[in-house]
């Protein structure tokens, strides 16, 4: 007999699936009910994610023993059936996705949702892909959820249309299609050699491989690593990223802030499962560390060179990806907890930043032109245009510029890791963990890591203040008009980061617990595959 809580892990996949399907078949003209459906679905996901967060930590009554929840689809046992696995890390990522989803959805309802068709269903499918990728315990299912989120993101990156978006979107699509093909080759190679696609069974099968088979397996694992690095935006596979993120509509770019972290998450998950002396290249040794450093360096150069805020935001995403890769590649496991803290803080900060710069740059001529064209193309003349102040709907915030400036400073503090917001605590924890690194960590690595972290922060401060001055201290600009539902999500995301900073102690202990249970691979394997194995090798 199973309690209803047993079925919670499937809900983050099912809710957006059904909500998206309903939205797909309802008429675009019925805005009220559609917005209500999308909001309810996203709120429900947030609620489920929070419950799962509590269950994974043992604060709510857990229907599973041992803290790791396993949901067998169709009740088929693990090596043969497909499972969803819920641990603390998955719960954190689910909560982050739902929070980000809610904020960007509310923001987009103000105007961006009307810049094209099928925004709301695509948005739900994107959330479904993200949730599924974080929960799944099966390699091929990971591919399928990657494809779902990518297919939705292809639609979303083109949302609003226009030559710039189509060009950037085309590059984005080609790069990701090729990465998906590599993913398929990797999955096929791993299945062909190890005879399983179950992520928990994989380490056991790999241990039994002969030398020649092991070479093939390593080849598959390396390809898999390359795919995840493409998604994570690691150098030199990230040249598409700033263009695509900068060209995408603001709420889309906001939710895309978590897309690179899916690659990082998958890399981390596989690195833990495949750890050991014979770990394949991207998942072990110094390889990932230096890759992360190179990513930080390329992102920092981009940050310094950026002349526009949207490109700057894209490069900041790359820097945060690189920081995470370097932290996960660092010797020992003590950096994982702080890195997770940094992940959450930087994703929230970047999302707020993407939405903020769209509001701040709204009155700039080229962007306004582009927007007007796309609104015109869909027969939706923008009512909030500054030429028609009488047609205003919603409340104009009188101190719009003050709000924007304050949010900009908060985001800058968050993204560069200055006190007093959560970005500082995350970077401080990372640095502290690197300095107190295990004795087997080379001194060179510690030095390089600290230098990279501090220099990238410095470059961020310089670039953000330079561009910030240009945008906010420019008297030629009139103050943009904001609506409450646009300002609210940005303020909300910043407030969450403030809360993370105030509650840094409990949050940090949760992240550390998540890192500990993540690195306890035998517990994961035992939870998914209880009892002796009877699987037959094909």
């Amino acid at each position, binding site marked *: 007999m199973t309690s209803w809580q047993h079925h919670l892990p499937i809900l983050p996949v099912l809710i957006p699936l059904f909500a998206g399907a309903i939205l797909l078949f309802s008429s675009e003209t019925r805005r009220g009910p559609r917005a209500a459906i999308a909001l309810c679905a996203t709120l429900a996901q947030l609620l489920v994610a929070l419950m799962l967060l509590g269950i994974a930590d043992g604060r709510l009554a857990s229907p599973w023993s041992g803290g790791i929840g396993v949901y067998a689809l169709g009740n088929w046992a693990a090596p043969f059936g497909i499972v969803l696995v819920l641990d603390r890390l998955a719960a954190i990522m689910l909560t982050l996705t739902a929070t980000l989803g809610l904020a960007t959805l509310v923001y987009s309802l103000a105007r961006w949702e009307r810049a094209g068709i099928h925004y709301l269903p695509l948005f739900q499918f994107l959330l479904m892909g993200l949730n599924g990728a974080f929960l799944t315990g099966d390699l091929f299912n990971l591919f*399928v959820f990657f494809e779902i989120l990518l*297919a939705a993101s292809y639609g979303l990156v083109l949302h609003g249309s*226009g030559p710039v978006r189509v060009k950037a979107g*085309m590059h984005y699509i080609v790069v990701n299609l090729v990465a998906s093909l590599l993913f398929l080759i990797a*999955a*096929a190679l791993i299945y062909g050699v190890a005879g399983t696609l179950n992520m928990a069974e994989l380490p056991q099968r790999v241990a039994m491989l002969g030398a020649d088979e092991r070479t093939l397996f390593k080849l598959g694992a390396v390809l898999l690593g390359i795919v995840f690095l493409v998604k994570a935006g690691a150098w030199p596979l990230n040249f598409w990223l700033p263009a695509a993120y900068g060209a995408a509509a603001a709420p889309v770019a906001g939710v895309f802030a978590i897309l690179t972290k899916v690659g990082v998450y998958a890399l981390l998950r596989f690195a833990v499962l495949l750890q050991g002396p014979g770990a394949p290249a991207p998942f072990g040794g110094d390889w990932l560390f230096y890759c992360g450093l190179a990513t930080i360096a390329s992102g920092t150069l981009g940050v310094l060179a950026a002349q526009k805020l949207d490109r700057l935001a894209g490069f900041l995403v790359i820097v945060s990806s690189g920081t995470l890769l370097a932290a996960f590649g660092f010797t020992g496991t003590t950096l994982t907890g702080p890195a997770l803290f940094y992940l959450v803080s930087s994703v929230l900060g970047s999302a707020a930043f993407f939405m903020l710069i769209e509001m701040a740059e709204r009155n700039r001529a080229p962007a306004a032109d582009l927007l007007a064209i796309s609104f015109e193309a869909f027969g939706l003349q923008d009512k909030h245009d500054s030429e028609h102040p009488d047609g205003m709907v919603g409340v104009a915030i009188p101190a719009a510029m003050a709000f924007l400036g304050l949010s900009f400073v908060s985001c800058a503090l968050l993204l560069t890791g200055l006190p007093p917001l959560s970005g500082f605590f995350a970077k401080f924890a990372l640095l502290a963990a690197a300095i107190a690194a295990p004795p087997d960590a080379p001194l060179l690595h510690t030095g390089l890591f600290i230098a990279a972290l501090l220099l990238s922060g410095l470059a961020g401060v310089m670039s953000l203040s330079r561009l910030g001055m240009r945008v906010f201290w420019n008297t030629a600009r009139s103050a943009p008009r904001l609506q409450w539902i646009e300002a609210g999500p940005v303020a909300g995301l910043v407030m969450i980061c403030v809360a993370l900073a105030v509650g840094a102690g409990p949050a940090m202990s949760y992240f550390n617990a998540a890192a500990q249970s993540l690195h306890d691979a035998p517990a994961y394997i035992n939870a998914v595959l209880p009892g002796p194995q009877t699987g037959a090798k094909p």
Partner: protein
Amino acid sequence: MEIVFSLAVGVMAGSGIYMLLRPRTFQVIMGLSLLAYAVNLFIFGMGRLRIGDAPVINPLRGSDPALYTDPVPQALVLTAIVIGFATTALFLVVLLASRGLNGTDHVDGREPDQE
């Protein structure tokens, strides 16, 4: 049979990569399709090549796994084909949109400068 099979995969993957690196969007989409075919065949081959064996258990032949081919790669290939088909169709739309908006089929949205 293995040689023919691997040659087919290799030739298609090679031509696919060549086409993918060409500057016109139509060549890119052809390259992606060829690569997808090669990858699908490759997945199929990873279930080991066998002639005349079904992946579904036949009550008359018994349940010895040696009599059957591996059904999992076939299921994977089916999924991969469907996803590849959908993404190719989507890319086709983007290709046409790019052609319409920019008036050129170059992947950068503009012709490279002539000497």
